[in-house]
């Protein structure tokens, strides 16, 4: 199994190598300091797992992803504190580790990366990631994990999400209902800043689809649905609606 580490700082590479020590028997570790080197290496070596830093001198890991022709690997981003990048990873359901990397987190991510299923639809997920990261004003897309892989949804097409214990039902504007294998909380955090509002313990609503609010505690959506707004959320809900 080939593991590629792409980072412009040697000590970061060293740290990852240190964390990989318990598994060294089955691994071949290669590392690259620049994007161009890495592109060449990846296309040549076809690694199974790639640890990719976001900031690489004057280039980014995204540049690398856009250029490589081989994408059949498991991808784990490593980053220090880049908020925009983290959001993009979460949107695309791509794994990432925060530096300095904690061993427990590393182990969790590495074990997952070893699973074949994690590789599923990576190509599309990378495309989602690249489109979301791009400076052009593309509609934000999210990769939604469900029982057979991933769904790719445009955030603005989502009308609402409804909690179902550890699953979440996502209702889209084409009238479909998708069930994701993540909690509502996951989507709430994911969609922060995209005009979604948690009106209730089990409801997350896209405010764009709210037509009115009724005094008896219901929000009316433009598909005619009536959704409860909990008493404690009413004030901030009305405020949030007026800000749209």
């Amino acid at each position: 199994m080939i593991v590629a580490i792409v980072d412009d700082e040697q000590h970061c590479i060293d740290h990852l190598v240190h964390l990989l020590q318990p598994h060294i028997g089955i691994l071949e570790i290669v590392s690259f300091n620049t994007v161009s080197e890495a592109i060449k290496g990846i296309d040549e070596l076809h690694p199974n797992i790639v640890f990719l830093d976001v900031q690489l001198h004057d280039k980014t890991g995204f540049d690398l992803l856009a250029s490589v022709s081989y994408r059949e690997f498991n991808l784990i981003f490593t980053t220090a504190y880049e908020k925009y990048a983290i959001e993009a990873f979460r949107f695309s359901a791509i794994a990432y580790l925060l530096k300095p990397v904690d061993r427990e987190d590393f182990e969790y991510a590495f074990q997952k990366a070893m699973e074949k299923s994690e590789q599923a639809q990576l190509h599309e997920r990378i495309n989602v990631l690249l489109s979301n990261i791009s400076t052009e004003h593309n509609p934000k897309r999210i990769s939604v994990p469900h029982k057979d892989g991933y769904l790719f949804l445009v955030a603005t097409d989502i009308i609402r999400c409804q909690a179902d214990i550890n699953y979440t039902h996502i209702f889209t504007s084409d009238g479909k209902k998708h069930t994701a294998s993540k909690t509502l909380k996951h989507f709430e955090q994911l969609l922060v800043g995209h005009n979604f509002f948690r009106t209730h313990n089990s409801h997350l609503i896209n405010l764009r689809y709210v037509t009115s609010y009724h005094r008896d505690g219901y929000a009316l959506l433009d598909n005619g649905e009536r959704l409860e707004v909990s008493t404690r959320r009413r004030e901030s809900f009305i405020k949030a609606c007026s800000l749209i």
Partner: protein
Amino acid sequence: MKCILCMFAFVAIVQNSSAQQLQKELDSLTQLLKTQNGKDTTTVDLRNLYVKQALFANPSDTTLLDFVKGTLRVSQQIGYDKGTMQAYERMALIYQYSLSNPYKAQEFYHEALSLIERNKSLQSFGWSIYGGIGTLYYEQEEYSKALRYFKQVLKHDTSLELTATANIANIYGSQEQSDSAIYFYNRALRLEQVKTNPTYKANLYSNLSLIYGRNGQVDSALICAEKSITLIETYGIEFVRPTAYANASMAYLANHDYVKAEKYAHLALELSDAQGNLFLQKSAWGSLADIYAAKGDFAQALEAHKRFSVLKDSLNGQNRRVEINKKELEFNFEKERSTTKMEIERQTTLKRAYLFGGGSLLLASVFGFLLYKRHRDAFEQKKEADFRAMVSETELKALRAQMNPHFIFNSLNSIGDYILKNDTYTAMEYLTKFAKLMRTVLENSEFKEIPLDEDLKFLDLYLQVEIKRQPGKFDYAVKIEEGLDIQNILVPPLLLQPFIENSIWHGFTPKSTHGRILIDISRKENMLVCMVDDNGSGGWADGGMPMEKKSFGIAITESRLEVLNRQKNTNGKLKIIDKGQDKGTQVEISLPLELLY
């Protein structure tokens, strides 16, 4: 029989002289007036006297009107009320007798009366005016009104007793109350004044003969008629002559003395023709028609009757005109009255409208002002509240931010301590744990409130890390009251951490027994009670340590609670209980229970 009441109304002026005397007096008055041209009361009196006499002597003298107007002007100029009043009376008389305009006459009578109203001293001179008005009513056949006026005159002015009595008699005659009429005529004839006044006497007898005739007392009628004619012949009383002749003719007719009847009828006719008195003409023709019919001269009777009918129609027409005039007058008066009433109503309505409008405006202004004030006050209050909230928010944020360096430096202490005791690789791993903790602190401190489970997760991580640094020194337990939905409960982030930190760093001395930290979360009514209990040396809270050395974290937490209480008007409390030397410390924070949903 065409029984026509042919009576001459008794003018309300005492008339003492015969026609010749009258003319003589008039001439002397004219002379006097020529010498008296000044504007004084004497002149006015003289002029009034002249008019009175002249009116009798020559009723058709139209120049008199202008003359009286002059008198009126002079009298008003010099402010001579009596003169003015009498001038008005003269004006009325002229309109009444010369110009046959009862309405104008009435107007002037009323002018005169209103002068009396203002100046009571004129009352004694004013009764002749009442007499004049009475005559007017009599002529307009408003007998009851006329009677009322004359009875007043009779009561108040003895000088007018004769006129009043005679007119009362005439009224009763007109009302066909013959007995009353005869009584008053005879009463009038017995009066002293009549003895020196042949005109009146002749008139009274003439009228009386008519009433007697109508009453069927033919003999009495004849006697009266003859007495009347004798008087007229003797004194040359032209004024009464046509009437007396007409009445005499009727008396003779009743007595079947057709020759005399015809003679007087013709005489009456001639005279009334000359005077243009249609009423008398009609009466005379009526008498003649009856006379001819009685004589069997039917052709002449028919002719007379035709004349009679024409005159009757014409007179009826005149009466109708009078009637119409009257109606018109009433109408005009009514119109004026209603216009005035409407104007008054309009003014009243307008006034009310103004009042109402003004009132409404005032009310609206007051209301508007109050509304504005309330709105403004509410706005101000909201602004102030918003401002205060913002200040509190900023304060809290600053306090939370202060937690970060505090936590970071304490963490660096821990890391340093760890490095000294361990190898570099495990130190590195320890460091990554702290990096994770620091990240959480930074993230959570962004929020005013976070779900309780998030904060507990952080505390758990923190405690694990600290245990790793000092293995075997202490352990911990987190106890959460059953049924508490920690995901739905909101707490300010990092509220408990400083107390746990104190327990770890100051609570457990090397010689003390195995340390134990208990975190207990429970609910008491609508308060969330978070307790940190240790079994350490104790005394760090406030007893053992001087105040200035009190943990920075605890001081910040106290301030945060204070600001939160102020902001939300709640009663969050911090209680630090020193359980005693080597027994440990208990910290209890109670917060109002806040739920996310």
